[in-house]
């Protein structure tokens, strides 16, 4: 029996309070995600249930119960409190997927502070931009990654605490603090912060077309959206062993790699190791994983390694598969049905800003390979006309995916960027503030993606409505890459666009002009690639660099990315009348 039951019945009888019923949560109870995901599970008698099965590289294995989660998150909350961290302070988590990442995330929320997880592969420049934007007060990291923090700390006056949670304490530098929660004092009781539904909880940074990344701020009330979608879309049930492959540096890794499943008291698995197909299959086999939430890039990489490899593992434990990050192509859906005992991946669509799933393929629903599925019950979705911004009623016509605001997991603001937040809403009045925007049922929140709807209500993804590059399921902003490129000594001007890639959907391609005295060469291309990889991240590294004498520009001197992108995708370049003749 699927948790969702009948999709149509759920649509007709929907109320977000169903999430509270599922969690048996009563009005007046503490609404703090940190406590809901640990203390509350123990209070209901499941303290000895396994919460986390963790495997790292080199056959490292560890298991933790919900009682361990409770104690170790208490430990982090108590320690941070003793360090002077206050409710509302931003605390960055910058580490690989080690157990302390998960404990500290809950501990920060228990304290009432705001968790700011960042992808550990970020280079020092990507890290600096995000810490400076958030005014981050403390960072939790490891010996492996603290070096990047050291490079930038002098330029971050608000960053007061650098806390290293793993490694050799003797190798710390002056001013750094060591804290190993598993060998620290046991904190049986911690009075979790009495958050209101609107108390900020998590700050995730996401990239846009222009400007530096923006911080999407979420609140403790998000748990209802994350828990209900975990129940109805991922179909998580008490005896499931669940694996979300996402890194908590990205929103999937917190909404569905921490909050949703643990609010429901589900056993989760985490694999902190480099990707190889055989390692992933072995992980599923060894841990008898039943529900698997992954990304199209990974699925296509598995597909590339062939059917024979899959057949050498016993994957019979699997019962439900889902996917997120970018559109899952029809071939991958069909392939999964062929090799995973008839199970097809259920594609889900949502964003950092939405906080929880919005349009999805539901368990039990007919999957139309390549389709995003249908809106989650309680979500009013539409495709808006590109010009008028009115909902389209014509099947198959492409428009902007939009949602009526007001769902629990919706982001509450872009950190200190009210104008940017306002720009995401169609129909917003000038000067409307975030609280008015997110509660106004007459507005549309516009996602930035394009789609069409078929006659049966299935949504079909078409592409981004802007220049943001979706590579390996992660959004990368061209502006951030271009800004870093022109810092290279050889580069005069740069444009970054996405080019098609069979595994990652898109990868970054850079077009550059060189300064006098520099000549194009393979060695220079490699040097530029490594320059960006280390400054920003491997995701942002151009996988191809094209040298040009000049870049296409408007008469006002703005580089026209859409022209370059269209060439890469073999599309019509459109109206070029605004381009400069020079």
């Amino acid at each position, binding site marked *: 029996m699927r948790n969702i039951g009948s999709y149509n019945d759920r649509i007709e009888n929907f109320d977000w309070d169903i999430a509270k019923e599922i969690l048996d949560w009563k009005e007046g109870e503490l609404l703090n995600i940190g406590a809901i995901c640990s203390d509350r599970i123990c209070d209901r008698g499941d303290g000895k249930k396994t919460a986390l099965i963790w495997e790292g*590289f080199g056959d490292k294995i560890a298991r933790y119960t919900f009682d361990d989660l409770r104690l170790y998150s208490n430990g982090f909350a108590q320690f941070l409190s003793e360090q002077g961290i206050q409710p509302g302070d931003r605390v960055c988590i910058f580490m690989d997927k080690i157990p302390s990442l998960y404990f500290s995330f809950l501990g920060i929320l228990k304290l009432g502070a705001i968790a700011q997880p960042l992808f550990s592969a970020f280079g020092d420049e990507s890290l600096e931009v995000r810490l400076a934007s958030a005014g981050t007060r403390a960072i939790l990291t490891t010996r492996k990654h603290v070096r990047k923090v050291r490079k930038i700390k002098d330029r971050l006056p608000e960053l007061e605490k650098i806390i290293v949670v793993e490694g050799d304490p003797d190798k710390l530098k002056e001013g750094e603090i060591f804290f190993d929660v598993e060998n620290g004092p046991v904190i049986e009781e911690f009075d979790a912060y009495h958050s209101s539904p609107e108390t900020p909880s998590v700050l995730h940074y996401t990239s846009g077309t222009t400007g530096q990344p923006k911080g999407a701020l979420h609140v403790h009330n998000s748990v209802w959206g994350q828990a209900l979608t975990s129940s109805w879309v991922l179909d998580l049930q008490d005896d499931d062993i669940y694996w979300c492959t996402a890194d908590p540096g990205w929103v999937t890794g917190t909404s569905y790699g921490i909050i949703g499943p643990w609010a429901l008291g589900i056993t989760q698995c985490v694999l902190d190791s480099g990707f190889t197909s055989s390692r992933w299959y072995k992980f599923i086999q060894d841990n008898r994983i039943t529900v698997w939430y992954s990304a199209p890039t990974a699925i296509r990489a598995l597909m590339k390694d062939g059917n024979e490899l899959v057949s050498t593992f016993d994957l019979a434990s699997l019962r439900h598969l889902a996917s997120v990050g970018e559109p899952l192509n029809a071939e991958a859906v069909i392939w999964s049905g062929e090799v995973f005992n008839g199970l097809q991946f259920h594609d889900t669509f949502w964003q950092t800003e939405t906080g929880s799933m919005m349009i999805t393929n539901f368990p039990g629903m007919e999957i139309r390979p390549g389709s995003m599925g249908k809106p989650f019950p309680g979500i009013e979705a539409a495709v808006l006309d590109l010009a008028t911004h009115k909902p389209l009623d014509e099947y198959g016509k492409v428009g902007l995916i939009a949602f009526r605001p007001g769902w629990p997991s919706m982001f509450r603001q872009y950190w200190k960027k009210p104008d940017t937040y306002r720009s995401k809403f169609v129909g917003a009045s000038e000067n409307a503030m975030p609280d008015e925007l997110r509660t106004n049922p007459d507005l549309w929140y516009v996602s930035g993606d394009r789609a069409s709807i078929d006659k049966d209500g299935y949504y079909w993804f078409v592409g981004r409505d802007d220049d943001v590059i979706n590579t390996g399921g992660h959004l990368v902003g061209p502006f951030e890459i271009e800004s870093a490129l022109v810092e290279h000594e050889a580069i005069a001007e740069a444009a970054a666009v996405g080019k098609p890639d069979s595994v990652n959907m898109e990868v970054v391609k850079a077009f550059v002009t060189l300064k006098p005295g520099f000549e194009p060469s393979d060695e220079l291309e490699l040097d530029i690639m490594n320059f960006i990889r280390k400054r920003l991240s491997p995701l942002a590294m151009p996988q191809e660099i094209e040298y040009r004498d000049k870049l296409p520009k408007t008469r006002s001197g703005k580089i026209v990315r859409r022209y370059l992108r269209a060439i890469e995708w073999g599309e019509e370049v459109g109206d070029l009348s605004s381009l400069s003749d020079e």
Partner: protein
Amino acid sequence: MDEMKKIILEYIADEYLDEDDGDEVSYDSPLISSGIVDSFSMVSLKRFLETKYSIKLSDEEATPEAFDTVNSICRLVDKHQG
């Protein structure tokens, strides 16, 4: 072959590891499966090999398994130079 191993190991230590970690990697240390080199960074490692040794590696050959150790990388390069 020994010279090639040394050059590739040095490149990996310089580009993908921090100063203190350089000594921890040997010719048989896993690079991809350990997470030292991720799938995106493999592209720059491939480009280095192609540039340095004037070879062309196909995507089919540049697998995580083939790139997982300095020794396996050298075997791949050696095959092309053969």
